């Protein structure tokens, strides 16, 4: 748990994560638990609430200058919504923002999500510790790329 409590990558501003619910799915337990775990680990968290469209999430992530987007879907409609989200991000100039997805997702769909550009997929039973670690790593990567790429 030590990894959850210490987050000091840059001095200027904490990492920012958008936790989003895409589609009509109302199962928000996981999204809220993860939003809170990230907050406790020092991240700045923007939780979108339920029933967001891919366009709304992409816009929020770009406007908020998010370091990572975390999408939670338990409705089985993950491929459809994530594909649209990736399209919107690229259209709107946010394809540098890494996306992770969690939810009730059959293993057979994990490969497809990764093909769409999702950086990691969290299945039921995943620990908060690992989720926080992965999100941190992705955020660090993005900040590093920003620094080197100007």
């Amino acid at each position, binding site marked *: 748990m030590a990894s959850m409590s210490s987050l000091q990558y840059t001095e200027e501003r904490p990492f920012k994560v958008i936790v989003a619910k895409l589609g*009509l*799915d*109302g199962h928000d337990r996981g999204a809220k638990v993860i939003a809170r775990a990230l907050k406790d680990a020092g991240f700045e968290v923007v939780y979108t609430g339920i029933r967001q469209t891919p366009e709304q999430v992409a816009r929020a992530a770009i406007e908020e200058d998010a370091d990572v987007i975390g999408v939670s879907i338990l409705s089985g409609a993950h491929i459809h919504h994530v594909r649209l989200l990736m399209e919107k991000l690229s259209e709107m100039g946010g394809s540098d923002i890494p996306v992770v997805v969690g939810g009730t997702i059959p293993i*057979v769909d994990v490969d497809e999500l990764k093909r769409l550009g999702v950086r990691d997929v969290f299945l039921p039973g995943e620990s908060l510790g690992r989720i926080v670690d992965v999100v941190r790593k992705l955020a660090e990567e993005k900040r590093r790329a920003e620094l080197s790429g100007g």
Partner: protein
Amino acid sequence: MGTIFNEDEVKKIGEKAEQWKVVTLKQWVERLPERQESFTTLSDISIKEVYTPADIPNFSYEEKLGMPGEYPFTRGIHATMYRARLWTMRMFSGYGGPEETNKRLKFLIEHGETGLSLAFDYPTLVGVDPDDPMAEGEVGIVGVSVPSVVDMDVVFNGIDMSKVTTNMTINPPAPALLAFYVAVAEKQGVPYTQIGGTTQNDPLKEFMAQKSYVFPPEPAVKVAMDLIEWSVKNLPKWNPISISGYHIREAGATAVQELAFTLADGIEYVRQLKNRGLDVDSFAPRLSFFFDAHINFFEEIAKFRAARRMWAKIMRDWFGAKNPRSWWLRFHTQTAGVSLTAQQPWNNIVRTAIEALAAVLGGTQSLHTNSFDEPFRVPSEFAAKIALRTQQIIAYETGVADTIDPLAGSYYVEWLTDEVEERAWKYIDKIEGMGGMLEAVKKGFPQREIADAAYKFQKDVDEGRRFIVGVNVFAENEVEDIRKVPLLEFDQQETERRQKQRIAQVRSMRDQQRWARSLDELRRAAEKGENIMPYVLNAAKAYATLGEIMNTLKEVYGVYVEPPIY
């Protein structure tokens, strides 16, 4: 009322237990330390080594238990319980279009299920048609798509609606789905007096959990009360509401919170209906409940027993109901979806069996058992059949249904039942202090409590204070095994295309004038605050679609936007 224990005897037992603890137990523990520093239920109730009469010293049989079928109904609402009739085996089912679901319902009936329960897809749950942009990619995935009376007709093709009872897990659009159901039953020639089943129609818990809300809290409650009022007057066998703790629990609440928030919802609805000038005994016997059966075995049994005792008291003493049927807490149970794991998924069969056993020992009226493949997708036929067979094994092989409330009199179970009850009353008092559950929900009180409990549970699992086999103990590297789990396969895109096509057909073949008039009348009735139910039924029969009915109501009532609480 007399206590069952002799006062001197209890005192002696208490002293003996104290002595045992400091002498015998202490010696043992020195040699053989306990497995954990402390033992607690999922509601964080501390559990002692052993229970004796000294833990329930003033236990009055009459006051706490009574006989089955008699106040306070702790032992069961029927005098006969499962010796006369087993619980209804009611499997929550639905996927794809009406055709696929019709086939699944017939499959389950053929294999011995005794009641139907429809799972709807997300567009139906939130009241949008399959061709609405919001429905894109979601039609038929988590349940069946039923956007019109024509679809409902296909769901029940070849199923005699006078012979089955059907639960519909539907909330804001409940008036429309009930209207579709009634219209199809009428078409089958079933008189209103024989239409049996349940609409979930429980708006308050939508704001705490499940989250298929549409209207803001006040109109949401108004619409639900309309359905109840219309139903008690027109459909004598219909359960117009299923006051649901299930989703509250699944969203992260403890057993105590599930119990308290559910009863507090019930209290709010009784008040609302009484405020309409209805006599409490005219509707109270039609109220039904729905609970979760989680994995912490005895706490769940205690919860079910406490629930009956508390509701009986609320109805008789708070609301002055005279008819003993008004005092009954009749309930459906579903095993805990959240207790299932994606890891070593076959273990879920065992979890479900244990949870189902708790529901039966807790005296449930009807039961759904989850399928082992549900951490991945809506169940396959194969998995759903095992889940149904699990209930049948409990019913026909184990003998647990052969006597009523067999755990009564266990010092532990009675102590725990009292403890769960006492803690639930504290919550109810708090909610009453806020002006009832409608106000408490508007303040975000239960939402916050549930979010806190969910987070605490996850931290406990993460930090090894709670164990989940295959997840944080006895875990295996098993990706390849999980890939082999046979999942339900169906062509979602084809379903979506078919459902869009059917709704377009419905729109083109209907009598446009009659259709427009029916929606206009619905709008005016809603604006005037009339009971909308007769108008919704009229619109359904004029082939108004689910989305059209809901959009008409949204224009009058508005749409809820949630302040995110986490």
